[in-house]
């Protein structure tokens, strides 16, 4: 069971900010990359391609960290540590791609990608640091 996201974390997650998500490589070293992000309640959702190093890393070790700086006020940032509790596949993953594309571009994606190509990470937070508001 994760912990709730604070108001400051939700506000910054809901804007057009990049989430930088860190995972663990096979040799135990960190990897971090910028991603679009959206939110369902207290869960952080990340839509990506199925064949990514990050997905392979998460399947082996589901512990992740996320940092997000608000474009208008980068500090203090949101810092979340948590776990990927589900890798969503199939049409539900394509729905996630559509949802995050609309969030960031304001438009539906031009094409609905094949279900076999998309995944969504569903992330529960274990620790949340965010601006106090």
């Amino acid at each position, binding site marked *: 069971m994760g912990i709730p996201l604070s108001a400051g974390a939700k506000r910054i997650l809901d804007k057009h900010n*990049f989430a*930088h998500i860190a995972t663990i490589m096979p040799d135990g*070293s*960190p990897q*971090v*990359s*910028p991603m679009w992000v959206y939110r369902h309640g207290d869960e952080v959702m990340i839509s990506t391609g199925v064949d990514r190093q990050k997905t392979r890393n998460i399947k082996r070790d589901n512990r992740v960290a996320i940092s997000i700086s608000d474009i208008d006020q980068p500090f203090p*940032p949101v*810092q979340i540590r948590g776990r990927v509790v589900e890798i969503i596949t199939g049409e539900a993953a394509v729905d996630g791609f559509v949802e995050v594309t609309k969030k960031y571009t304001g438009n539906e994606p031009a094409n609905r990608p094949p279900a076999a190509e998309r995944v969504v990470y569903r992330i529960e937070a274990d620790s949340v640091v965010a601006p106090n508001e």
Partner: protein
Amino acid sequence: MIELSPEHIRLLREPNLAHVATLMKDGRPQTSPVWVDFDGTHVLINTATGRQKPRNIERDPRVALSIVDREWTQRYVEIRGFVVEVTTEGAFEHYAMLARKYAGPDAKPREVPGESRLIVRIEPEHVTGMNLGPRPA
């Protein structure tokens, strides 16, 4: 040691935030945004004593950074590498320089009593990203 391309270096030298990942004691990742710089060989970040990041780096020097181009957000670079040096020498001046780079020429670096600034020097081992050719006009 790998060679960074002119466009990688440009992303490091322009005032783009880097998000740096380190390893917690139990092997979990930790990540936070930092000001970043390039000295011609190494990627430099500036932190301070007493923070989680230097504690993590002391235990395990493996780090990763991701940087989005603020002018063209479809472009980003990801760097993985390891810390070759952590030093207080010149670290406050470096912090002041970064404050001017990111916050403008009149920016004053914040002095926190009891805290020493640290330069963390990172050797890149692996670089990837997207749209790393020259930026369109």
